[in-house]
């Protein structure tokens, strides 16, 4: 006698999806904060990087505020220009179907980030804590770490946990590198990247939008670094080959039997209650080039992967960060839904959120808490907009602008309040 399955509440489907994307973002931010606090405690050695983001102006503490601001603005403009150029090159390469080259480049840049930048940060830690490790052990461990990381990122069918872990680590390493930039440059750069993201994804001429449209029209995946959350499977998933890249096969079916897919939507809706958003039913009717809404289920296989949020495309953005060793790493920005109904968040988003929180950590932990809440709130708003608009959306603008706003307000207003309260033993 089978037990009646517990009806799934909205906490278990929608909430679970959100938690599965917020957890890695939080972990990445936490790791960057820890790195920043541990490594910059001895601030006598200010490690400044010469990179493309400081090519126009190197900040010195003796300049006036206005000079610093103008310098930072110039730096950011140069950086955004380089990123735009590189993204257009990426779109061109994708258009010319150089997918192998792009994948190889992605693997190469992951190796550089994990091997060299990971190695440098490990060396910082070793020197700080005087860990008695010898060079042979260090090299073997680093080699292992980098090669397995490249395989995890490169191969589509690796253990999900391993891939996700390595993506978070790559985000953390790049974000730590960005926090080494001068202060004003970092803040202005964050705002500039948020505005660039907004323009690149939503404007019809934006490179990211072109990339996404190309990917949809060709029914291919963009070869780039994207974090994909594990999809939420319903209770009754049984045998049958479930695929993480469901949409590639079903795309051919979709145009033929829309009715069939509708049928499974209704059955799914009836089965799991009204916890799914109602947009599923309407959205599957139209098959426009930008909106690609599928219910994430394989009707003929009996496998059920639920998609509480609608399915969208990720948008891509290429980050160009230069140091003497590394080239450019291909990271993805923007938010979307993966093929099996899981949420996809570009690695660029991880990086810039962590840069913001890392910079806030360089001032005080108060700003860290405020900025963390702002970013998570912004991410929630972005996810809601994703479900509402059913389009590829930039994940940076809302969170970054909220984060910068909260940082400024905390430094100006909250800090004074908290310090005075503590001194007079009223609170904290």
């Amino acid at each position, binding site marked *: 006698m089978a037990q009646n399955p517990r009806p799934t509440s909205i906490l278990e489907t929608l909430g679970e999806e959100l938690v599965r994307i917020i957890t890695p973002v939080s972990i990445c931010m936490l790791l960057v904060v820890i790195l920043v606090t541990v490594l910059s405690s001895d601030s006598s050695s200010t490690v400044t990087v010469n990179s493309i983001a400081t090519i126009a102006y190197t900040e010195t503490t003796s300049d006036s505020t206005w000079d610093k601001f103008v310098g930072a603005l110039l730096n950011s403009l140069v950086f955004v220009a380089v990123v735009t150029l590189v993204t257009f090159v990426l779109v061109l390469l994708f258009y010319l179907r150089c997918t192998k080259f792009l994948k190889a480049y992605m693997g190469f840049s992951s190796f550089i980030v994990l091997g060299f930048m990971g190695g440098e940060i490990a060396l910082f830690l*070793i*020197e700080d804590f005087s860990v008695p*490790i010898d060079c042979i052990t*260090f090299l073997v461990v680093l080699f*292992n770490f980098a*090669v*397995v990381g490249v395989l995890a990122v490169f191969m589509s069918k690796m*253990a999900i946990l391993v891939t996700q872990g390595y993506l978070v680590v790559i985000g953390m390493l790049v974000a730590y590198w960005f926090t080494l930039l001068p202060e004003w440059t970092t803040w202005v750069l964050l705002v500039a990247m948020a505005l660039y993201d907004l323009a690149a994804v939503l404007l019809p001429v934006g490179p990211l939008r072109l990339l996404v449209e190309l990917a949809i029209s060709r029914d291919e995946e963009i070869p780039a670094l994207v974090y994909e959350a*594990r999809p939420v499977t319903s209770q009754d998933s049984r045998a049958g080959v479930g695929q993480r890249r469901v949409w590639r096969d079903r795309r051919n079916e979709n145009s033929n039997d829309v009715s069939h897919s509708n049928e499974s939507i209704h059955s799914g809706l009836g089965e799991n209650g009204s916890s799914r958003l109602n947009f599923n039913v309407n959205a599957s009717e139209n098959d426009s080039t930008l909106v690609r809404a599928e219910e994430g289920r394989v009707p003929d296989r009996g496998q059920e992967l639920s998609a509480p949020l609608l399915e969208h495309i990720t948008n891509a953005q290429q980050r160009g960060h230069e140091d003497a060793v590394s080239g450019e790493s291909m990271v993805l920005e923007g938010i979307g839904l993966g093929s099996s109904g899981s949420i996809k968040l570009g690695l660029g988003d991880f990086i810039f959120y962590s840069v913001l929180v890392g910079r806030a950590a360089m001032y005080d932990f108060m700003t860290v808490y405020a900025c963390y809440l702002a970013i998570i709130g912004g991410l929630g708003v972005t996810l809601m907009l994703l479900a509402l608009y059913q389009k590829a959306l930039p994940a940076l603008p809302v969170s970054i602008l909220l984060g910068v706003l909260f940082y400024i307000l905390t430094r100006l207003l909250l800090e004074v309040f908290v310090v005075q309260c503590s001194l007079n033993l009223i609170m904290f």
Partner: protein
Amino acid sequence: MEASRSNPEIPNPNPSPRILLPSSSSPVWPTIDGPLGLSEEDSVSYARRFYKFGFALLPLLWAVNCFYFWPALRHSRAFPRIHHYVVRSAVGFTLFTALFSSWALTFGIGGERLFGHVWDQLVMYNLADKIGLTGWS
């Protein structure tokens, strides 16, 4: 009544859960990801590739192999071919880790007393300073 008592070999007719179905204890999926992972044929080729690449001084790859195909490691009867490679990967990983950690611990704990002059030349932070690796060029 007579019939039931005459044959004490008849097992308890009550279908208690003592009846073990062999299929209930063996998993359907060879990977730890379950239905999101690989099918069995792909799994064999992946397990074999991970095992072979692990010989290139990559014990972490062997560890990932064991982690990924954990159900195959536990239930050897269900996935014989995968079990073959995963067991060898596990053995290789433990062997390599034992050797390597013994060297690393000897180096770390022994220190200068054991190695003398060479220790200063081998230890990482001195080496990094000498080569100037942390200059963030």
